[in-house]
């Protein structure tokens, strides 16, 4: 899976730029150093958002900015698939989709399209991606992430957008440096799964260790336990969910993909299996953060 190496010169488009979230997100991205060059909203041609021109179509935006091959999508759930299709047809090769509640069958179609065209999709329900050298897509890190973050070798991967931010901010306060943070989204099926995110981080020479926030039901857990996913770098996992024992099983909690099946082992057993497989695993986020300093 080909996740690009970004830097301050990477040109980025925003599909859905004139919406409330689209325009706010664009402003925050620009303020943190991302080179957003244009936006797309059907019928929005001629407008400007944060000083950036708006086009009716991705094709029109790319005609003016042929180097822009990365797009952030902030459109309503029912329109996400057509936005991705339009982007792929116009030559976009990397998407970050912030929209939540995209139908799972639309995600399956997107994954197929992306595979056929050599594109890569972070999300849906991905709050974003950030990295050193300073660059980010989406909202990850809030208003001014680089004021707190320290540069280092850790890759932070999370199925939860809020916990991705909680984790990078806590690491920043602790003085632990990170290389990148990626929120893959908590849906049952994502463009980049947590397993694929681990593979991306493991393959990058500038990443020295991996810190993961995962939730019960994620396929990564089984992969790490049965050895089908076997990263070469030190890896720590925060896996909450003991309190799910108080709730009916087989239902999603928090995220659509967070389900403890009726036949699944308990969280204590899952954590023990992960430890036995050689990974640091804890239910407590504060312990997880402390451990990350030692990776």
């Amino acid at each position, binding site marked *: 899976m080909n996740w690009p190496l970004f830097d301050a010169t990477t040109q980025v488009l925003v599909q859905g730029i004139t919406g409330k979230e689209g325009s706010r997100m664009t402003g925050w991205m620009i303020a943190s150093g991302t080179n957003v060059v244009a936006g797309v909203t059907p019928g929005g041609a001629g407008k400007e958002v944060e000083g950036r021109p708006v086009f009716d179509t991705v094709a029109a935006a790319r005609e003016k900015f042929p180097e822009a091959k990365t797009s952030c999508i902030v459109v309503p759930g029912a329109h996400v698939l057509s936005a991705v299709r339009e982007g792929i047809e116009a030559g976009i090769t990397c998407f970050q989709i912030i929209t939540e509640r995209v*139908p799972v069958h639309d995600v399956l179609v997107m994954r197929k399209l992306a595979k056929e065209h050599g594109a890569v999709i972070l999300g849906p329900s991905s709050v974003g991606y950030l990295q050193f050298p300073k660059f980010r897509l989406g909202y990850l890190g809030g208003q001014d992430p680089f004021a707190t973050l320290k540069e280092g070798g850790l890759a932070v991967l999370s199925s939860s957008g809020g916990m991705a931010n909680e984790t990078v901010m806590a690491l920043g306060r602790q003085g632990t440096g990170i290389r990148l943070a990626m929120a893959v989204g908590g849906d049952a099926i994502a463009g980049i799964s947590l397993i694929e995110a681990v593979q991306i981080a493991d393959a990058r020479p500038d990443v020295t260790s991996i810190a993961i926030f995962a939730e019960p039901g994620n396929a990564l857990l089984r992969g790490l336990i049965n050895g089908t996913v076997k990263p070469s770098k030190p890896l720590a996992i925060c896996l909450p969910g003991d309190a799910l024992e108080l709730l009916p099983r087989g239902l999603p909690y928090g*995220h659509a993909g967070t389900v403890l099946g009726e036949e699944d082992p308990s969280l204590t057993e899952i954590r023990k299996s992960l430890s036995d497989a050689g990974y640091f695993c804890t239910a407590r986020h504060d312990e997880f953060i402390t451990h990350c300093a030692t990776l």
Partner: protein
Amino acid sequence: LISLNKQMKLIEADGKRLLQEAGINVPAGVFVSMDGTVTGELPVAPFMVKSQVLQGRRGKNGLIVKCESTADLQQTLTALRDRLNGTPCAGFLCEPMMDIAAEWFVSVDVDRTSGELRASVSTDGGMGVENAVAFNVADVDARSFPDVIKDVIRRLSQLLVRADATHAEINPYAQVRDGSFVALDSKIELDDAAASRHPEWATLHALSPLGRAPTERERAYEQFLATAGHRGTFGKYLELEGDIALILSGGGASLLALDAMHRAGGRAANYLEVSGNPDPEKLRDAVKIALSKPGLRGIWMAGSFANFTDIQATCHAVLQAIEEAGLKIPVAIRRDGPNADTAQQETEAWAAAHNVSVLFHRADTSLESSARALLLNIV
């Protein structure tokens, strides 16, 4: 919308309607409502009466019984209603007896590891998925199953895509003595995120997945969800047995917070999760439902360091709900993110003005510490 707390499991009768629309043979069943109203011509006696609950093992639990004659039906229903003992049930499905030669297990679902449709097949119908062979539905032609099984896999795959279902299972898919096949049971789960493009889902039965009737507040929250609109993500509200009201934000942080409260020795009165910069008025309404539970001893608003949720607006909405509920019990707020400074100042001023004990914790206080601090404030 049939969504009950976002769960979209269908009862057998509704599932069989979808199977039939997909061209899969199902028994000629007749639906009987809970009060015994028969909606068609009953099968020739003796016939089977099947309780339409979401729980498995219906046969073992005595929720599927044989009715010897049409005259016995109402008596049979009375016995079944007694046996249900509060388990949510949509009605009863009456189906003819079948002379079965063989039983298969067939299902198609969305495989989370591969991100593709996966079929599972076993010749041990009646048993669970654990005995089944699983493979990508795209490879069905290459498999050595009988054509009738390959055909039903293709039809189930089409059903998944067309109906926005995530799981469709027939167990057993039975071969009758005359050689034909029929779906004797169905388990179908729909994708709640696709509800807006399926107005026909309004005709499906809604059942609580909890194995008990929804409480008054769970029903009120269900009503609320129907009007909540699209801004923010209003998740589940479930009533639990404790006395600390929880207002949780962020899917991942909700789990951590619930864990942390229980590790600290507190017992949650509810699970309520609201994320993604919700509309403040809607948030206030949702919180008021949670705060209407009698006997609360504390309130904990807990979440992750927000990326984009306006912390000032959400705290303001929660304080308003507390004020309108007239509660003076200890409160702890553990939130950080956009506008958190203003949120903290306003909250502290509100606490002083209303003489309510409110702790305001930022991201440098862990969820564990915040939970413990709240419990220490409760006498």
